[in-house]
């Protein structure tokens, strides 16, 4: 690839993070993306120059097929993610999340913003991964992991209630966490969650699902989001490297074993019959698929 071609592809990747070789249903490709994809198609298998350049930017090129990302259609998908082991140049080190998310009206400290950020991030991860039974490496199901703001609020509210039951910690750091989270009213929590979601949409971590796609009426319904393909790839490739402290300690303490819950024969409905109880009516909210 020539330096100019690298420049074209880099520009497109930097602004969009994920580029699609072929059209994918529900997504329009701009001219910039199409041009970059023509270059990539011509250079297929010879990306070493581009990869070398990306390394200087602390970035890694990920090449996948749409099928690996659980997307319809066919073709290659190119994404760039941060390489946590590399020192990124200045323009890639950003406090963009903190700047956008901090509550300026309340003179919030960076420490308090960080507590909110971690707290809501873990709620998000709970909904996107734990509740969906997804491993961190699972990208293929990311587009199906929809979360709505009301459900998010419920989980956040429950977690805050748990904090309120804690004794006031003596340790300063723990006290910051405690005091940051016991104070807010329900309305404040709601605003905070809204701001968190909005920030993540702006930063390309979440995508807001349009009412036409959810089938709900536009007015008066809560917002629904899904994880972006970029975020799913980034977490799959990087989470264990940039956030080991969040799942640190004994991994078994935070790991949901799979084998224990995987009982296909029973879950197909035979159990109820064996015990002689009548099969419950299937409600319109279909239970999780067997």
């Amino acid at each position: 690839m020539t330096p100019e071609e690298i420049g074209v592809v880099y520009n497109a990747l930097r602004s969009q993070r994920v580029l699609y070789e072929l059209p994918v249903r529900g997504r329009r490709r701009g001219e910039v993306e199409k041009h970059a994809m023509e270059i990539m198609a011509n250079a297929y298998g010879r990306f070493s120059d581009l990869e070398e350049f990306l390394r200087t930017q602390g970035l890694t090129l990920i090449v996948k097929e749409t099928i690996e990302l659980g997307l319809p259609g066919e073709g290659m998908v190119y994404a760039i993610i941060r390489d946590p082991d590399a020192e990124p140049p200045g323009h890639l080190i950003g406090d963009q999340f903190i700047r956008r998310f901090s509550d300026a009206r309340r003179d919030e400290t960076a420490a308090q913003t960080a507590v909110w950020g971690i707290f809501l991030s873990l709620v998000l991860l709970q909904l996107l991964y734990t509740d969906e039974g997804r491993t961190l490496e699972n990208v293929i199901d990311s587009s199906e992991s929809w979360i709505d703001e009301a459900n998010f609020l419920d989980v956040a509210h429950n977690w805050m209630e748990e904090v309120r039951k804690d004794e006031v910690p003596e340790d300063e750091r723990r006290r910051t966490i405690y005091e940051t989270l016991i104070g807010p009213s329900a309305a404040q929590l709601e605003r905070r969650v809204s701001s968190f979601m909005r920030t993540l949409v702006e930063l390309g971590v979440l995508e807001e699902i349009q009412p036409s796609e959810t089938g709900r009426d536009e007015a008066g319904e809560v917002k629904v989001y899904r994880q972006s393909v970029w975020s799913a790839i980034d977490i799959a490739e990087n989470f264990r490297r940039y956030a080991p402290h969040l799942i640190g300690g004994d991994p078994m303490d935070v790991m949901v074993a799979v084998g224990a819950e995987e009982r296909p024969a029973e879950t197909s409905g035979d159990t109820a019959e064996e015990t002689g109880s009548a099969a419950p009516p299937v409600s319109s909210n279909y239970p999780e698929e067997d």
Partner: protein
Amino acid sequence: MNDTSKVLRELPGQVLAAALASRFADLQDTNIAQDSQTITSPQPTANAGRRMRAASALLRVLQARLEEGETKLTPISLIHRERLEEDEDITQEELRFAARFLGTDRPFHYEEAADGRIVSRSTAVATRLVRYDGSTADRVALTESGRSWLRITQQRDNWLFEDKEIEKLASAIANGLFDTIPQIARSNHTSLRLMAESLARALQHPKSREQNELWLSKREHYGPMMQRCETATLRALSLLSSDGIQAQFDAWSERQTVDGKITLSGLQHAVQGVHAAAERVRRLWDQLIERAPQLATSSVGSIDFTAAWRQYRKDPPSEDLDLSFLSAAFGWGDAEQVMSFLDLEGSLPVIPAHPRARRLEFHVEPDGGDEPLQSWLMRNRERVLEVLSDGEPREFFAFVDEVANGSDRPPLSGAWTTFLIPDPVGERARIRIEGTNRYEDHLSDAESIKVTAAKIRLLKGPEDHDDP
């Protein structure tokens, strides 16, 4: 989330096929209003499972006899004797009831579009799986529908022989059965796509460990089979481009009066799609084999982030670590800080709200401009910024318009660039100038890219950064 494919794999064939079809039967017979909030299933009888076992036993004996070449009526008493070993508690009466039941018509309704209108139809013959002779004797035989049923119930895990399915392509081509090719290609394409998805899932999802084990236990078969799939598609492609087949296709095509939509290039496209899908499967398979040892030992499970949160509260990491996570996990830089190879910075007051300020597109179609756009921008930087600082985007476009159509026509070459123009109070305006290179062959040298069209677009605000 449980492993559906495992459930499907382990269910007895008769049960699987009946379960798959049961919802359609229910759909016709269950009396539920369309707007009902609750979808209920019909209540099974108390001995529903046992009835299924008796019916399966009956069909299994008839199937065994069919495999021996016997298709005639078989006495119920004989069937009962043959099933004694495995179903000793099933009585002759139960077998007889199953035979009478399966031998009775049950109209199945459906609708079809024909000649531009919807026609209501029903079939009864397809629902009668056996022929029961209770008038002269107590005997039962499979009907043609019954034999179809048995064939369907034997369709399990057919990927094992996917290569044979793909070989149908070459066979259809060689025998001039061109009208069957699109369907064979579609069916194989879908199968291969599902196979690829299954492999991709196995690679990403430790929950698929059992599926992985299944794949790997037959690796000596699957590997060569996937290779044969690729070879079969190559053979089909090669046949399609041979002179003999092309002549045969032309002759066939001339004879076709009904379906003129099938073209040779269309067939080639379809087979190429199957070939690409087969290649994909083989690539993913290679990855699975390569990573098999790692997958076998990797930890299985998803993270319980509620527990992680509790652990965080109990023993929180440092604030620096938190901040570093929040920076890393949510990407880099502001969305509007798109770095290009040419950034021009300057001061600009807040651009007043203007109906055109949100997104303005400006198309210029120069007749073959060949100077580097970026050079033009550099040369005109001061003027561009000056116009922008007037605060009226409209004027900027008027300016560009004037220049584009005037003597100092912007060359509109080069890639594209983004101006990031922050003002003292932190508001930003971005101008993105995109050049579209439609004639890649005309790349003259390393310094310039010829473009034939350009969009000049003013974007205001960070939320407006995506391409339309």
